[in-house]
């Protein structure tokens, strides 16, 4: 039973106010992209044991989508942040580094 703070309305929302929306920072591939890129975008997932970045929506709340950085092994939350970004904020990356030095996730570290 997770709680995540919605970065838009500030509510410490419990899971039943939220909706999980899958892996974060997917780069969309449209017409003109290769089959591999397109398959990667639609289906291939990091699915890590450990640090993960994902999308959520405060669906029973302010309705905004946001990002969360979370550990899939401990459910520790490193932070939530705006949906309108292509990468996690440095502050959250630092927080993760303090706990898991040398972590990587896709192109982030």
């Amino acid at each position, binding site marked *: *039973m*997770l709680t995540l703070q919605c970065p838009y309305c500030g509510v410490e929302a419990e*899971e*039943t106010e939220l*909706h*999980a929306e*899958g*892996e974060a920072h997917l780069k969309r591939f449209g017409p003109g992209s290769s*089959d*591999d890129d397109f*398959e*990667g975008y*639609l*289906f*291939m*997932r*990091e*699915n*890590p*044991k450990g640090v*993960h970045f*994902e999308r959520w929506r405060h669906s029973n709340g302010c309705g905004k989508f946001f990002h969360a950085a*979370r550990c*899939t*092994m*401990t*459910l520790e939350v490193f932070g939530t942040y705006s949906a309108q970004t292509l990468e996690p904020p440095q502050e959250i990356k630092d927080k993760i580094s303090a706990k898991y030095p040398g972590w990587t996730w896709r192109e982030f570290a």
Partner: protein
Amino acid sequence: MRRYSAFAIAREAARYHTGWERAWRSPEPKKKYDVIIVGAGGHGLATAFYLGKNFGITNVAIIEKGWLGGGNTGRNTTIIRSNYLQDPSAALYEKARSLYETMSQDLNYNVMFSPRGVIMLAQTQHEVRGYQRTAHANALQGVKTEFIGPERVKELVPIINIDGPRYPVLGGLWQERGGTGRHDAVAWGYARACSDMGMDIIQKCEVIGVRSEGGMVKGVDTTKGPIDCDKLGLVVAGNSGALADMAGFRLPMESVALQALVSEPIKPCMDVVVMANTVHGYMSQSDKGEMVIGGGTDGFNNYTQRGSFHHIEETVRALCETFPMVSRLKMLRQWGGIVDVTGDRSPVIGKTPLGNCFINAGWGTGGFKAIPGGGWATAELIAKGEPGPLSAEFGMERFIEGRFIDESVAAGVAH
């Protein structure tokens, strides 16, 4: 292997059962095997068993990081059915179901396959049409199912409320030869048979690396040292992503928690398995008398084997509505398992980007019922190096081609 029988029990009773031998050996790993299977769950053990039985390949190690059968094999709600819609699924699950019919005799281990029948309730017009479609498909697939009316449902399940004010029961898809089995026994029975064929089941041995050369698999590194092999099978539900990562490729899968619960045991009151997909709940009664109840998956990646309580709430709510007597029972125990879910909710049995490395994964919520079929198909794949007809459609290439096997279409869910 000393055979199990009533006579053997009587013989042993006289000497206080001191003469029973180990069900399986507990060997140290050899340097090299023809085939290594990673994962001693139902699918892994079944794969090894059919490698031996169907292809005579017995120089096999089954490597398990925990205890055999300790993953999803021992955590599911033990439902066995094959009333799937799409041809490839129906073929695979019906193969599995038919193997369950004779499994106790084949393994000389009573897995308590109980073909008590499975009903999937239709509670909306849309579900009625969906299940009628499945019944028509099944008729051509050689899967015996039947769409039955509400009166017949009530006859089969006296404790059901077919006149619920919100979702009256409009009928159901009935598979008479579906049912349940004793999940632990399936793993134990296969393990005993594999061990008897000379295969090594190596428990408490974690794979920490996959070794390859020139794009071909060479072996694995484990907590008990390196072990070489010609062929490698990854059969590790809930950990497929981690193993794939070691082998150097990604999977079209995510791992999420799936939960189940049981009530306290009561005297027999329900003799079939009932699945109610509109309200999201399914229930059967175990031989011990517990009502075994399953629900839905969490929406987020999770490896903790702990799901979110609101799914339990949703499931119990649905079952209290469908079976009013449930309200006065008590929840004895809830638990979770980690399932790998693919992009089309159907499993993957196929080759991987690494040569001679094969994978059986992505069963989502439907792994237990498929164990013998999945093992059969995976053994064929590993032995021949190419998929046979049972697994032909289940390769990962389907995600590139857009050739999906989508079972959710007939109002069904892949439990």
